[in-house]
């Protein structure tokens, strides 16, 4: 495996997260009627960080936070060689009439977000849904889906692969670009 190219430094990574939080506060105030939903598995890492920081910044410690598993909603089910592995789904509230911030690490084809939107329907009719993505890969979108809040934008070849590493799991916060899928 070739080593990935580091796209942003750990310091800029921290700034980016901080900026995303402030953008969310700018638009949604103390997030009183807003819930944050991380998409399992990798969006949850980003959502964890955002929620933790937003609680401090807004002083609102009751931000509803859910973890949404979309495995059973994917449209590429049965196109893989092995079964898709589900992750725990933790949604302890309904999203009816709430502002929903969907959180994922990398926005690429948009299919994950499409599945998340259909999964979300099962929890009521949200007032509005917006998308937070740490990395927006601009090319090769398969669906008309755009992020409302973007950490960094990456232009890469289709066969390239972007991976986000987290301190809690990988020992370091970094965004890596690989030549091909690893």
């Amino acid at each position, binding site marked *: 495996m070739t080593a990935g190219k580091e796209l942003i430094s750990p310091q800029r990574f921290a700034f980016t997260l901080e900026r995303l939080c402030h953008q969310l506060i700018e638009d949604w105030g103390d997030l009183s009627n807003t819930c944050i939903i991380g998409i399992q598995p990798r969006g949850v890492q980003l959502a964890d960080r955002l929620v933790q920081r937003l609680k401090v910044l807004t002083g609102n410690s009751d931000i509803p936070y859910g973890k949404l598993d979309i*495995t*059973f909603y994917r449209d590429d089910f049965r196109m893989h060689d092995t*079964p898709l592995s589900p992750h725990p789904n933790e949604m302890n509230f309904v999203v009816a009439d709430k502002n929903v911030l969907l959180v994922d690490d990398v926005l690429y084809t948009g299919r994950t977000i499409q599945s998340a939107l259909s999964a979300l329907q099962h929890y009521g009719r949200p007032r509005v849904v917006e998308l937070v993505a740490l990395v927006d890969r601009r090319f090769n979108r398969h669906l008309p889906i755009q992020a409302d809040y973007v950490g960094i934008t990456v232009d890469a070849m289709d066969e390239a692969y972007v991976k986000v590493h987290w301190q809690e799991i990988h020992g370091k916060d970094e965004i890596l670009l690989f030549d091909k899928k690893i």
Partner: protein
Amino acid sequence: MSSLSTRHLIGIKNITEADIQLIFETADNFKEVINRPIKKVPSLRDLTVANIFFESSTRTRISFELAERRLSADIVNFAAASSSVSKGETLLDTVNNILAMKVDMVVMRHPAPGACVFLSQHIPANVINAGDGTHEHPTQALLDAYSIREQLGDVANKKIAIIGDILHSRVALSNVFCLQKLGAKVRVCGPPTLIPKYYADLGVEVSHDVQETLHWCDVANVLRIQLERQDIKYFPSLREYHQFFGITKNRIEQLDKEIVIMHPGPINRGVEISSDVADAPQSIILQQVENGVAIRMAVLYLLASGK
């Protein structure tokens, strides 16, 4: 994620411990799904499943049907009594006709042991055994073991007693295979006429003393006396059976510990188990039914996965 080692679920004997664990882990997720306000996910929306029942069933058929519907599959139901089988059509012809209508999976119950193996060798669809005669009933064994795991945390090293009509029971055989693969200690208990000799060769203990077995076990899985299969007299009367082998409140109260009571249904109250035990707090009979849907969703999902 790993996948199942088989394309069909014919029996527990042919699957591995890893398969069983994978089914359990997947069932955990489906159990969460069926406790949501909206209990449906679209995973199998492009598949058609045929439920073919050549023998009567309430629980298993409804459980499979609910599992299929909650995965958004299309369903055709078929009961032998109202079909061309009564006009003399063979099993293979019946199923091939159904498959010609583009069915992807077949769930079958049949009175002849081995009917599902036979079917799986001749048709391209995935076959799930919902009980073949006195042979196996794999999804029942999976949900029983899953319920034990849920109740006691783990199945390994637990002492499980299977009490009742072992001779006619496909549930008993599948349970023995499943529990042994998961590392449990298994004992069968019942009148000598209702325990086949070969059970000792399977590595299970055989006992004819119910009270002693209840003392020994952590879980008592009580099986039904299969009145419809009692072609000869295996015991003098139901009343006598109840006196010697029935699980009663009196027997449970004599124990110095609380054991878990299970029953795969349907219950003959007052025969193999008395009403007060069947309805006692330590009985998990209705949890078994709930888990049945989650387990069957997991089996359908995993068999339908992959290319």
